[in-house]
């Protein structure tokens, strides 16, 4: 790099930090005392501009977020102050008149139940699809299937809602009756209403499952592709069948990824608005029997009510929205804990 080493040029090293290493290498065979002291790093213009702009963007983002949060919380608290009922335990939604009384219990229940049904169906199927694409299907089939999954992820939720209402839900009436006939002894599978419609939380759960499936499948597929070939071969060389190889090498390695993918899907299931609003015949009561028509979710309730709400109603809806936010936060936090508990064994340091 540098040609001759003279005391003068060594002095230069202080200013010319970019070339410092080449020089100190050459002087390295002398005594340590002769090495140039590490010069204070000189900050270049480009770095300074980049640092400034990224810091600015970060601060701006925080300010905007804080402003939104403050606005929402103020509106919500305002409405909660005028609530005559109990916001957390009531299942009514009366926001006008002399005695407004509204509560999110029924909405939270509906949100959680429909999302839980969606996850119970979607996660195993999505993992299965991802495994099939990455480990079983011939290349051609895998590619086609991959495209279909990606395509499915791009279908707008309105379309799912319409399809669910017009096509799917009438077809599911039989399944509802069948489930309650055979599993009715489990309280939540019981069905009071002999009902001619299937506009239920269960139908919602199925539609949500179909909606979140492509997201979960697409992410888990990427995760499964990351599994080092060496680990798969290690299992196979021990005499594992393909399924045993998947169980010993692929699934454990992919577990954190599967959880993260499920959280992405769950976030969408919890927050899905239009499709749910279209399918459910909205009602406020707490519906635990998800095979009965009725029930509602936080997001769908907001969509249904917002248009004709007065100021108090809007505040109440915002408050319910904040509940949804905390619900999502809680679930994500729980998932983080699960992932971190086995960090040592995550394979990240392999």
């Amino acid at each position, binding site marked *: 790099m540098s040609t001759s080493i003279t005391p003068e040029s060594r002095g230069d090293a202080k200013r010319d930090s970019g070339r410092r290493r080449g020089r100190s290498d050459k002087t390295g065979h002398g005594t340590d005392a002769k090495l140039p002291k590490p010069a204070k790093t000189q900050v270049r213009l480009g770095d300074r501009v980049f640092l400034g702009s990224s810091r600015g963007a970060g601060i701006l983002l925080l300010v905007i977020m804080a402003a939104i949060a403050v606005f929402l919380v103020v509106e919500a608290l305002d409405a909660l102050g005028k609530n005559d009922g109990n916001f957390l335990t009531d299942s009514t939604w009366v926001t006008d008149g002399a005695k407004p009384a509204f509560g999110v219990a029924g909405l939270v229940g509906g949100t959680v139940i429909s999302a839980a049904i969606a996850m119970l169906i979607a996660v195993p199927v999505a993992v299965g699809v991802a495994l099939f694409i990455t480990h079983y299907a011939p290349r051609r089939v895998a590619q086609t299937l991959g495209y279909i999954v990606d395509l499915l992820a791009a279908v707008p939720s309105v379309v799912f809602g319409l399809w669910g209402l017009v096509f799917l839900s009438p077809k599911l009436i039989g399944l509802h009756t069948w489930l309650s006939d055979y599993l009715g002894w489990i309280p939540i599978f019981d069905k009071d209403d002999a009902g001619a419609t299937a506009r239920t939380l269960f139908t919602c759960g199925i539609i949500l499952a179909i909606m979140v499936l492509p997201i979960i499948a697409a992410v888990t597929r990427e995760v499964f592709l990351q599994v080092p070939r060496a680990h798969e*071969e290690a299992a196979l*060389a021990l005499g*594992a069948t393909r399924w045993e190889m998947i169980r*010993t090498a692929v699934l*454990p*390695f992919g577990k954190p990824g599967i959880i993260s993918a499920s959280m992405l899907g769950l976030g969408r299931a919890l927050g899905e608005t239009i499709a749910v609003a279209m399918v459910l015949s909205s009602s406020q009561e707490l519906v635990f029997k998800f095979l009965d028509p009725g029930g509602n979710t936080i997001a769908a309730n907001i969509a249904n009510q917002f248009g004709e709400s007065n100021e108090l109603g809007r505040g109440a809806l915002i408050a319910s929205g904040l509940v949804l936010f905390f619900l999502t936060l809680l679930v994500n936090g729980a998932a983080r804990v699960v992932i971190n508990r086995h960090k*040592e064994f995550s394979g990240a*340091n392999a």
Partner: protein
Amino acid sequence: MTKRIEISGLNAYYGANKAVEDISMTIEPRTVTAFIGPSGCGKSTFIRTLNRMHELIPGARVEGRVQLDGQDLYGPEVDPVAVRRTIGMVFQRPNPFPTMSIYDNVAAGLKLNGVKKKSDLDAVVERSLRGANLWNEVKDRLGKPGSGLSGGQQQRLCIARAIAVEPQVLLMDEPCSALDPISTLAIEDLIALLKERYTIVIVTHNMQQAARVSDRTAFFNLAGPGQPGRLVEIGDTEKIFSAPEVEATADYIAGRFG
């Protein structure tokens, strides 16, 4: 226990590409056979045909015969999974399962075989780790992840994992190439111990290692660029290193290659 491997007229392909051609040799029980040869001459390909790992690569296939004590490994009724249980393999880069503890790594193969009883597993894990010369270093942290060990320890862990299922043959593809000299010596000592119980095949780029650990040495070479690899000669290690029959072998061993 240990068995003789007889290979005759073996060709291995990657798609339409022939990687090794017409290999015939006999590997005696309880010996260490070293495979040497320049990079790309098909040593890894060939060693992977011996436990049917080769065919796992899409488009890869094998022609010819590999017999284990007279039984054709590529026979129509032979289950490749069973072959891999009988013929263990250690890879170039240590590959313990990162999601498993040291204990579970060693027990992985047994669990695949349906062994569930804790006391049985404990016994085999200890025996295998002792067999791999690793027991003393890890006995106090069997529950810790295998990926937390040093490279040399990880490789010995992989050897322990491979011998835990009591294979009859142990294939090693450059098991020391990612290791420092001390760990390398530890593995070489281990090979000397293991050969009393197993038939061992080892691929190595290190001539001294081949000379130190093996009883027999096989030299592979490429006829030319783009040509498949072939077996040039195989013989007792002493003879291959002192008076090989083919000049190319002598040149390669002396480092006068290419």
